[in-house]
């Protein structure tokens, strides 16, 4: 990475005490994202992707234990005092959650929520803030924005609510937007619209974006880089095009293969991944994916593979038996 990273997650682990023992939700993750870049974090439920985003935002549950550093724009968010952190969040570090109903206040109008954000962070006066709000709602594709200002979240559809949440997130021109499964709760046609909207605004504002999803299809055309997570760890990381061209980690490959393809014939048996993800309160000694991996052998059950560079330095994977690349020199 040539330029200075905007966000750099350094050796971050998150532990949560549970009645069944310690749960390691995020296990020694290192990630970087440069200004204006997009990073996709992909994984199944329970892989730690949401906990990682909460660790970046410093919005972890109170009893959670975080170690490592989260460097954002030259400051370590883990050690930042609460007041400065609060100023940073919403201003230069914004987030869009899966369910817009949980991020919008149900008893305040859309207008109040937008104007409040603008006044708080940008110290605009009432009229200017209101004008900006209308512009923002129009920018995220909300028809009749003036009228929407007086409406409450429950009067809008799911897709419209998500647009409002995005408008609020974008309102202070953040440097980094974290979108945590922003379209999972939405229908497929609305999903496409929202993803296009995020991509358009990201480019236009030269804002960095982390797109968290369980769907490899969502990150494929819309990110510069992808990190695949499994059982709290990043198991493969690469520029998006390189990753889809040659996946090295068997889990990534299996995850892609398990998605039903629209161009496959009906009744084609899907290559399912047997078993299920490990119980995070019962850590596995070796590679966490080994019990489900068809390439696993001796060493995989004893030792945890570390994330290491493949043939190019920006493609990394954590595997002892990576998928061999059939060299395509003259067939």
């Amino acid at each position, binding site marked *: 990475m040539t330029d200075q990273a905007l966000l750099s997650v350094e050796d971050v682990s998150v532990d949560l005490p549970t009645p069944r023992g310690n749960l390691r939700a995020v296990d020694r993750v290192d990630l970087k994202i440069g200004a204006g870049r997009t990073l996709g974090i992909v994984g199944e439920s329970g892989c730690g992707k949401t906990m990682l985003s909460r660790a970046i935002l410093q919005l972890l549950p109170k009893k959670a234990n975080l170690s490592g550093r989260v460097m954002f724009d030259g400051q370590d968010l883990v050690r930042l005092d609460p007041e400065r952190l609060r100023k940073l969040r919403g201003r230069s570090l914004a987030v869009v959650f899966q369910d817009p109903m949980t991020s919008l206040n149900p008893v305040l109008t859309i207008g109040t929520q937008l104007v409040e954000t603008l006044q708080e962070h940008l110290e605009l006066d009432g009229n200017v803030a209101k004008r900006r709000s209308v512009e923002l709602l129009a920018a995220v594709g909300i028809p009749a924005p003036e009228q929407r200002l007086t409406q409450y979240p429950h009067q809008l559809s799911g897709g419209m609510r998500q647009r409002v949440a995005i408008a609020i997130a974008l309102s202070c021109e953040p440097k980094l937007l974290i979108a945590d499964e922003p379209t999972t709760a939405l*229908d497929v*046609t609305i999903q496409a619209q929202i993803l*296009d909207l995020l991509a358009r605004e990201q480019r236009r504002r030269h804002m960095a974006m982390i797109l968290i999803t369980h769907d490899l299809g969502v990150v494929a*055309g819309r990110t510069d880089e992808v990190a695949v997570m499994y059982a709290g760890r990043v198991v493969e990381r690469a520029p998006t095009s390189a990753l889809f061209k040659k996946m090295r980690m068997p889990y990534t490959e*299996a995850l892609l293969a398990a*998605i039903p393809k*629209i161009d496959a014939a009906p009744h084609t048996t899907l290559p399912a*991944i047997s078993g299920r993800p490990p119980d995070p309160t019962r850590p596995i000694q070796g590679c966490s994916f080994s019990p489900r991996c068809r390439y696993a052998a001796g060493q995989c059950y004893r030792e945890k593979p570390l994330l290491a560079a493949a043939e190019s330095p920006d493609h990394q994977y954590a595997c002892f038996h990576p998928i061999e690349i059939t060299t395509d020199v003259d067939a």
Partner: protein
Amino acid sequence: MMQDIQPSLSRDPLLKVEDLVVEYAVGGKTIHAVSGVSLQVARGETLGLVGESGCGKSTLGRAVLQLRRAVSGRVLFDGQDLTAMQGDTLRQMRRRVQLIFQDPIASLNPRRRIGDIIAEPLVISGVKDPEKRQELVCEVLSAVGLDPSLVIGRLPHEFSGGQCQRICIARALVLNPEFIICDEPVSALDVSIRAQILNLLEDMKARFGLTLLFIAHDLAVVKAVSDRVAVMYLGRLCEVGPSEQLFARPAHPYTALLIEAIPVPDPEVRPAESVPVGEPPSPISPPSGCRFRTRCPRADQRCINEVPELRAVAPEQFAACHHPLIAAD
């Protein structure tokens, strides 16, 4: 007389839905959930039913089972009209039709043991011998890939989502039904588990000679298991046709929009800048004429005035559109 618009007439229809209308009253308003849907499912076939949330696909599934009574129309199962049945006769028929829901954990009683949950349908249908019940329970549990000895005595919370869905499938199979309605059976599951459950459903279908109505919003998932696919929008059927044909050459603009919107897991395929087509209108006051017209790039005056009927656009493929993307030769 309604025209016979359904394909596979040469085959034996196990389920025939005729001009079904289902409405809900909510706060003095009427929700037009299903407005005149006709379809058939041939014996041994899987019919996929797709559409976005609120299109009425789940209501249709429930109305087939008479869990929601229709305002008008008929549901013929094996030649008998379920809408005319009551009480015991209906209960007898329901043994032959089972339902699997989206949320596998919520569909299992958290306080009962798995063995009892699966035996319950047998108790209700009058299998009195406990040993016989036990035997049948073990049989279906093995069939869905669970070890009966490890599962029977445990409670639902001890299982993952994927395992709970296996248990739900076992419960649906225990009465040896002919027809299963799967209502978004894999939507709540992770990708890796989803493939397991889809494969299991296919296996069970072959093994027990089942006929399936597979309801889902994910077109790729529907295509993976269906022989034919029916597309619903705002309470009406837009298009019906053989899966492969429908995906290769959609006739209805809505089908085309749905296919285009699927994210493709390949960075080489640039996502098509989606046309800003808005959102589905409310089923309380659906648009006149074609219900899709408010989002349709091809809509004109005729679409406002006239409700399009399902018409053949290709062999076995039918679309309800005044301006289909493909036309009958």
